[in-house]
């Protein structure tokens, strides 16, 4: 045993998920007002708090499954699963993360936690799917790291900010194995 060596380790960031409250509005504004974050999202970058409060109240708070991604207790992003209105076996995953926190493994960790939770909590759920813009390489990497399967490119599937986009369909089944 070598007692003379000093080692410094950076403490592992603690990533947790919890429901949002209106008290999180300022933290939410950090990523909601960031063009880099909203680029592939259907919503436009938020420029004022009132609009964001409306979004929180109308969409986030009543949502079937919407969580704050917290880094050491502070919300740095959001993740949600929307059950399909047509089929109870599937739900759609969506997530955003403040750009300052990109590249640290936070999104994959949040996705893993979310997928585990929703398969336990949502009755009849067998498939979690995610649709990613063909240009959104970062998001594709997140899903691949978790173990999602890339199923194919759905051409001209969605209109994003006035333009028709090709989207890549990813899925993770309740029977699939998550990457460690």
């Amino acid at each position: 045993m070598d007692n003379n060596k000093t080692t410094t380790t950076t403490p592992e960031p603690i990533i947790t998920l919890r429901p949002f409250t209106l008290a999180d509005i300022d933290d939410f504004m950090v990523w909601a007002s960031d063009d880099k974050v909203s680029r592939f999202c259907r919503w436009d970058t938020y420029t004022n708090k009132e609009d964001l409060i409306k979004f929180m109240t109308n969409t986030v708070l009543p949502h079937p499954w919407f969580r704050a991604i917290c880094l050491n207790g502070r919300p740095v992003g959001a993740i949600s699963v929307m059950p399909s209105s047509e089929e109870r076996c599937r739900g759609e995953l969506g997530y955003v993360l403040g750009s300052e926190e990109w590249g640290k493994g936070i999104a994959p960790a949040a996705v893993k936690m979310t997928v585990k939770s929703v398969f336990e909590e949502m009755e009849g759920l067998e498939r979690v799917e995610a649709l990613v813009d063909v240009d959104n390489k970062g998001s594709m990497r997140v899903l691949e790291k978790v173990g999602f399967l890339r199923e194919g490119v759905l051409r001209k599937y969605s209109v994003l900010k006035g333009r028709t986009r090709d989207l890549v369909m990813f899925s993770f089944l309740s029977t699939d194995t998550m990457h460690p």
Partner: protein
Amino acid sequence: MITIRPFTISDVDSFISWTSDQRVVRFQRRDPCATKDEALSYLQTHILPHPYYRAICLNGRVVGSISVKPGAADDDQHKASVGYRLAYDYWGQGIATAALKMVVESVFSEWPRLERLEAMADLENKGSQRVLEKAGFEKEGVLRKYVSGCAIAAEVACMMYLSD
């Protein structure tokens, strides 16, 4: 000669002949019409008011149907999905393919905002997949456990046709 035309109430007898046939409705998501009353009701409440629901006719005789459902939300007006059914005795003669080709041409010219026409076929439904391929659809992928039917989630292949 294969033609497409809107349905009328008097088509109910032809309609019921295939709509209750297990071989035809096997991969269908809605329950088949078991009685003439159910068929009439479906014709009146779903088919006649539908934005695009057509009878497939062979030499004037109704042998199947084909329908195109436009995208629901404001954001989805650029896309629509197509489905078709054919009486069992008429399978294997290229009728569905011919009807589908006619409908593809028709909807892309009638709906100027349409950019994507999609269709789903159960992974086991090889017949329907062949129809789509022959009509020019491209297979985009297999969506695993995409739909639940009869308490068993099935896999489906999704194909589409782009207007260029």
